[in-house]
């Protein structure tokens, strides 16, 4: 399996894990839980969608979501479990953004073609 595919699948797992982390880690009522339950579904959806040839660049949105996770402990309180989830999830999302999904197909220049044209 190509590295880019593995990276997006890792981001998908991270997103789903973030959704479950507040219940598993026992911080469901905290503000950190809201952050993780908000970032998780979007990160998972972006990871799946970025696997398609025309939408690979969407993975960069997970760079932003990863940064939000990593910076959130400075803004809202995180207990140890939440801190671990934020650090692990944030690291995976940030890293996944830098590994492009494999270019399995040509799409006529992609979205750039619409902007630049020829």
């Amino acid at each position, binding site marked *: 399996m190509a590295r880019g595919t593995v990276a997006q699948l890792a981001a998908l797992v991270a997103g789903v894990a973030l*959704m479950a982390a*507040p219940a598993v880690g026992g911080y*469901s009522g905290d503000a950190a*839980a*809201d952050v993780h*339950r*908000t970032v998780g*579904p*979007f990160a*998972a*959806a972006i990871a*799946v*969608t970025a*696997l*398609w*040839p*025309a*939408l690979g660049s969407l993975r960069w949105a997970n760079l932003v979501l990863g940064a939000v996770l990593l910076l959130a402990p400075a803004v809202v309180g995180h207990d140890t479990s939440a801190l671990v989830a934020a650090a692990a999830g944030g690291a995976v999302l940030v890293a996944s953004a830098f590994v492009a999904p494999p270019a399995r*197909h*040509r*799409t*006529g*220049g*992609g*979205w750039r*073609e*619409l902007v630049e*044209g020829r």
Partner: protein
Amino acid sequence: MNAGPRAPVPRASHVPPGWDYNPSAWSQRTPIVALALVGGAIAIYLSLYQLDVVASVWEPFFGSGSRRVLDSPTSRVLPVPDAVLGAAGYLVDAVTGLIGGVDRWRRMPWLVILFGVAVGPLGAISVLLVVIQPVTYDAFCTLCLASAVVSVLMIGPAVDEVLASLQHVRRARQRNVGWARALISGGA
């Protein structure tokens, strides 16, 4: 005179220029339509609960989570329950996914764009609802999550067809074809 074996007459290619596959091929669209039908079935079932046609809703994992989500004020913020809107959205997805032939990316750009508009926002709204469930009501709903997964899986294959149509409209515009003609007939 024997001219030898004849070269096959090339058929008009339905693959967009610069592409190596046809995003309007049935092999690309059938899975989307199938997903839309699955999502529609889920949404219709949830609608029946929200419309009080059935008394309970199937929930294998989250206890009373489904009822809390489906009976929440958010699900009734519009005149009709949100699952009914979801079912309508999936129906639009399925119908717009079925109409047109394998060259619809250039023959019916308007339809392909409508298809993308139906699929993309529906997926985004589904993800938003997945966020609202636990953040606002501290609850999850299994079938709502399943519906969201279906919606998200439809986005990728739908959007690549939209891209092919938009590229075609752009080429038509470069040939000085008017917007309306380019969108409606692809400038043919």
